[in-house]
């Protein structure tokens, strides 16, 4: 509990009482008997996800009386705004951000650390979460975030395209590849005319770093070496991945051009096998595309799946209002308790383990596939330079993708640039 709160003794007492009550039970309690505070909440869940978040927030307000003033801003702009607003003390009470943003925001003093005693008093425990998501909220030994859900990669299989390429069984089910050789072979069979066999990425596959990272991790490589100081991209394992990255369009010729809109191509029936984020599948259902969701195939050594969990954080304030902080905690608690609803409607699997055995969730084929990948989940490295490194990776892997630069030289150059990033 922050020691900087103004000494309004009634609030402190009630706040302390609420803490005590919460410690005894894990059900959310009203923070005080006074008028409920309104808290500000920023997140990047625009589009269809946002509407579902609105419904859940309305339900939260009905049940607890705490009102939330949401600002939804596209992720990239959200982070810029957070960086401008928090130092000017204009930041929100609660913010939902991506795991990979935690280290640099924490190191810049934008986020407030969560005291362990408070976190566990609110009912958040390590054993309730999957390890990668629980760890994702930490930076340099301190906790700054609590995970909500796990957007991740998936292999989307276009049933119509595969059928037309003769890749469906007698029962009409498409033959789903699980290894690199299978992917390449089937993609080559599909690629014909204006139809492509295989792509990684929503749009602009050439510079889809999230896919590139996924492949790196499958080969045991990573952006930084284990000490998080020097770049690991000039290692042979990384170069091997980069060579594959350049080969799918230029050599195997199974992938669309670097700036193609893979998602639209898949919807229009011009793409057969598509590795992309789980957030796409609700849109595919809206567009009435016939598809099957399969686990990400093992393209290299291990079947690792890229994830980027959403994390709840408390941006720093000059003076923390205890009632608002409690209200924010109450929301995080409530969302975590109701995360099964979020999963079912928005299609994002929870970071908490418990809902994974919910029969409504395991009954949905796509969600079941997502859950099945849990053992292979991996996320970005906890260094403040991760995002900057990712930004300078994009043009370079794009050059490799279009065949303008050989993989080894490109990776060497990229490693050099990453090493030169200022602290």
């Amino acid at each position, binding site marked *: 509990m922050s020691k900087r709160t103004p000494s309004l003794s009634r609030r402190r007492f009630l706040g302390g009482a609420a803490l005590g009550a919460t410690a005894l039970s894990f059900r959310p309690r009203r923070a005080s008997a006074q008028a409920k505070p309104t808290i500000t909440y920023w997140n990047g869940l625009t589009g269809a996800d946002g509407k579902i978040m609105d419904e859940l927030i309305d339900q939260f307000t009905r049940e607890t009386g705490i009102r939330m003033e949401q600002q939804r801003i596209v992720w990239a702009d959200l982070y*810029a705004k957070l960086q*401008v607003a928090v130092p000017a003390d204009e930041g929100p009470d609660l913010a939902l951000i991506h795991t990979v943003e935690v280290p640099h925001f924490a190191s810049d*003093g934008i986020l407030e650390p969560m005291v362990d005693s408070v976190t566990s008093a609110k009912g958040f425990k390590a054993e309730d979460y999957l390890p990668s998501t629980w760890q994702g909220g930490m930076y340099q030994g301190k906790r700054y975030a609590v995970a909500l859900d796990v957007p991740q990669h998936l292999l989307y299989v276009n049933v119509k395209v595969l059928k037309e390429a003769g890749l469906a069984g007698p029962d009409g089910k498409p033959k789903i590849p699980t290894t690199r050789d299978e992917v390449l072979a089937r993609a080559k069979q599909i690629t014909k005319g*204006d139809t492509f066999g295989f792509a990684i990425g929503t749009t602009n596959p*050439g*510079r889809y770093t999230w896919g590139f990272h996924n492949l790196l991790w499958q080969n045991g490589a990573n952006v930084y070496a284990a000490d998080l100081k020097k770049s690991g991209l000039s290692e042979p394992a990384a170069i091997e991945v980069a060579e594959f990255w350049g080969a799918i369009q230029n050599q195997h010729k199974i992938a*669309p051009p670097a700036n*193609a*809109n893979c998602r639209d191509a898949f919807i229009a029936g011009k793409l057969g096998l598509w590795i992309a984020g789980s957030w796409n599948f609700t849109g595919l259902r809206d567009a009435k595309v016939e598809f099957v969701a399969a686990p990400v195939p093992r393209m290299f050594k291990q079947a690792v799946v890229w994830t980027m969990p959403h994390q709840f954080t408390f941006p720093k304030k000059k003076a923390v209002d205890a009632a608002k902080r409690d209200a924010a905690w109450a929301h995080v608690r409530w969302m975590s308790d109701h995360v099964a609803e979020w999963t079912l409607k928005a299609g994002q699997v929870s970071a908490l383990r418990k809902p994974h055995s919910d029969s409504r969730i395991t009954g949905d084929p796509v969600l079941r596939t997502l859950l099945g990948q849990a053992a292979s989940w991996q996320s970005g490295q906890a260094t403040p330079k991760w995002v900057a490194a990712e930004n300078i990776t994009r043009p370079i892997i794009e050059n490799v993708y*279009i065949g303008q630069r050989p993989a080894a030289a490109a990776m060497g150059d990229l490693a050099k640039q990453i090493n030169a990033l200022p602290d």
Partner: protein
Amino acid sequence: MKPRRALRRGAFTPYLFLAPGLVLFALFRVYPLLEGLWLSFTNARLGRAQQTFVGAANYLRLLDDTRFHVSLVNTAYYTIASTVPILAVPLVLAVALNRGVALKTFLRGAFFFPFTLSVVTVGLTWLWLLDPVIGPSTYYLRAAGVPVRSWLADPGTAMWAIIVTTVWWVTGYYLVIYLAGLQDIPRELYEAAAIDGAGGWRSFWSITMPLLRPVFLFVLVTHVIGSFQIFGQVFVLTNGGPGDATRTVVQHLYETAFQNFFHFGAASAMAWVLFVIILVFSLLQFRLLRGHTQY
């Protein structure tokens, strides 16, 4: 332009006229600009409470920043390559519309409509149009037997695709400006020239262009200044790609300030270097086109 005698009675008159605008300008432009200049000599970062003076370090770092150099070259290339299309197309349309055409309102509205769209809408629309898999342009070209190219993913054609998009977008506005200027040219001059036997082309060069000169100069200078600062449509269409082939200075600046590093001091230094370059270009233009215009 005949020199005006200073209005003795109201020696303050010019300043009174200027006052409201200058207050607005001084407070909301000059002051932030100067603060930006100051910040360019510090290691200011968004999120960092204090900044320390670092002298010319930010400027010196630009000498080593190869991506900054690439972006300068790209921006210069765009500026020069786009000047003729963006200046000439609306002028031709304006002259045609100013002659005897019917359906003026529809035509003006049609050419102007793209200008009402936001940069994101324009970008998304042209991304779809030029999409190498599902885009209509790809589809129709393929049907016509033309080999398919990914215009925006090819370093050789990406910038031209951006120029075409920009011409489509802004022609309508320059058209309006040219029309406003053409309105001021008295009809009698054209009629007199016609009586003397001058054809359309001749009267264009000897009547229209000279009288349109201040307007043309304005369009030219504004276009150049705007081109050096191009950002929006490039960001949406190619995000500076493929690789860094269409990366512009303002994109580099924007990412330095608001995305990767939040290095506000470094970004301010870039802005002032860009300012000096544009200033030099603009002064050259003013000199070159001074000619017979009143200054």
